[in-house]
């Protein structure tokens, strides 16, 4: 892998939150990964596994406890306010809830104009033209510019947020469950729109999601997280055939497709999640793993290369 192709390089990233009474919660536990130019890396995991914290760390919203985040060669983890502002010119984020992303007293037009003004990109008139162009790309018309956020539907508003994220032509987009706050009927629509914009522009993307089925269809690689740890990183195309980690396999087995073979049983994973507070240094999945051995409860498996570009953290590999 060429070093110049790397947009984002995360190494041993850890975030520990105090959980009261001297206990700690490791939301993100020494995670390493890279995102290349134009690539879409999906991060998958159930709620509470640290996906959103990861997004907030990568974008500098939250400060990391340890580890490094290099974005286009610059250190995000130790960036000051001014450096972050400069970095965000090239790194944008789309949030989970579009409704809370726009100030209720700001018209959509003002909202979309903000990045152009704050980064001094172009004059107002040119910005207006660019905004119209962007809006037509997300299939909204200029009427919505005069509207307030509560006058738009969730799907429309999320499309506005997507347009805004693309307005600065960033190098990296971090998407934190961008469809989970939307109605199921428009999720697919918004997602497809986003995907076409993303591939069309060649912008790299860190796509956080809890729906494996949704994401495997359009991402390049998938990173599976479990309680703050990376358990597997694999090409999306090979996901169905070559996944080796019991958790990934469990996720795949519990997926329901319209085209699924009805005779094949859907299997839900058994067992409960471990408490993430003061979690021991072991394989965090050991409490639910059907193959768990004594060793899994005592030691933490390291991420190992199974094939080129395919990494998994399991003693069985």
């Amino acid at each position, binding site marked *: 892998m060429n070093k110049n192709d790397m947009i984002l390089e995360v190494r041993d990233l850890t975030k520990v939150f105090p959980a009261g009474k001297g206990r700690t919660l490791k939301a993100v536990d020494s995670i390493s990964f890279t995102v290349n130019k134009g690539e879409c890396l999906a991060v998958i995991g159930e709620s509470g596994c640290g996906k959103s914290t990861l997004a907030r760390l990568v*974008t500098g*919203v939250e400060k990391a406890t340890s580890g490094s985040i290099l974005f286009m060669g610059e250190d995000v983890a130790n960036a000051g*306010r001014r450096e*972050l*502002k400069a970095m*965000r*010119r090239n790194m*944008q*984020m789309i*949030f989970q*809830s579009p409704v*809370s*992303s*726009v*100030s*209720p*007293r*700001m018209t959509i037009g003002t909202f979309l104009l*903000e*990045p152009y003004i*704050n*980064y001094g990109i172009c004059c107002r008139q040119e910005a207006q033209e660019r905004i119209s162009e962007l809006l037509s790309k997300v299939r909204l018309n200029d009427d919505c510019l005069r509207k*307030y956020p*509560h006058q738009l539907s969730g799907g429309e508003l999320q499309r506005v*947020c997507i347009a*805004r*994220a693309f307005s600065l032509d960033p190098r990296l987009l971090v998407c934190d469950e961008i469809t989970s706050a939307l109605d199921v009927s428009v999720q697919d629509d918004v997602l497809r729109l986003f995907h076409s914009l993303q591939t069309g522009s060649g912008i790299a993307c860190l796509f956080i999601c809890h729906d494996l089925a949704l994401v495997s269809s359009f991402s390049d690689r998938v990173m599976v997280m479990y309680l703050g740890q990376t358990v597997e990183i694999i090409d999306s195309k090979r996901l169905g055939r070559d996944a080796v980690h019991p958790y990934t396999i469990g996720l795949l087995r519990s997926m329901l497709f319209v085209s699924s073979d009805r005779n094949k049983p859907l299997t839900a994973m058994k067992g409960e999640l471990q408490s993430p507070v003061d979690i021991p240094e072991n394989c965090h999945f050991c409490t639910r793993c059907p193959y768990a051995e004594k060793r899994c409860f005592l030691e933490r498996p390291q991420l190992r290369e199974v094939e080129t570009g395919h990494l998994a953290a399991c003693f069985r590999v």
Partner: protein
Amino acid sequence: MKDGKNKRLSKRAKINRRFYIMAAVTVIYVVLALFADRFAPYDPVEADPAMSLCPPSAEHLFGTDKLGRDVFSRILCGAGTSFTMSFIMITFVSVLGTSIGMLCGYFGGTVDTVIMRFVDILLAFPDTVFAIAVAGMLGAGVINAVIALGLLSWTGFARMARSLTASIRERGFVEQARFNGASEVRILAKYILPNVIPQIVVMAAMRVGGTMLALASLSYLGLASQPPTPEWGVMVSESRAYMQTAPWMMIFPGLALFITVVVFNLFGDSIRDYLDIKK
């Protein structure tokens, strides 16, 4: 669907109508207060011993006091000064209190803690006691009474602005604003302030009435306006001795105070609904 839309529209229309009516009432009130000398049928300070303690009649609508002064004229003229004073004080204090509150709420930290504890101390003072203390130090008078009330009432705005800011700061759109490249100052001015202002305006409108009431009670105690100035508190105070023989001397200034507070409270209420873009 269409029905629902109509219903919502008519609700909005109702709110707008109520706001326009209340605004008109308030404007009439303010005009009456400010240009009272043009409307007043008699000179509010000119005594006419022959007409002492006349009950309400066609000639003297609200009767006369012991010096034969027309109560109606005195009530009209009494509104002007206390309204102007209250309005100026509230305007000044709401801007100051809101700025302090927003800065505290947004940046937090030690300064915030210190200022808010100071606010707590000020809130622990009953305003009358505080005004007595100020009057004791600076002397009795309307200006001093207004200063005393102002020294206390900024805290209400500061508290309100602080708690609003602290909760708005955590909302998604502020985080989003940072991705829009907005500076801290811009976030405060363009993202937080518009969401704070409606509540502050409502509070300010309501406080004008309350401040006029407070001024009247200070005048009643002899700490603000002094006789023979036509002022409601002074009038009520003068009427004490005649409560049984000439109740109109007390009833009408009291009623004027009551109406003042009601008008400004209703006006504040209608502003709240009017500024609520979601309704």
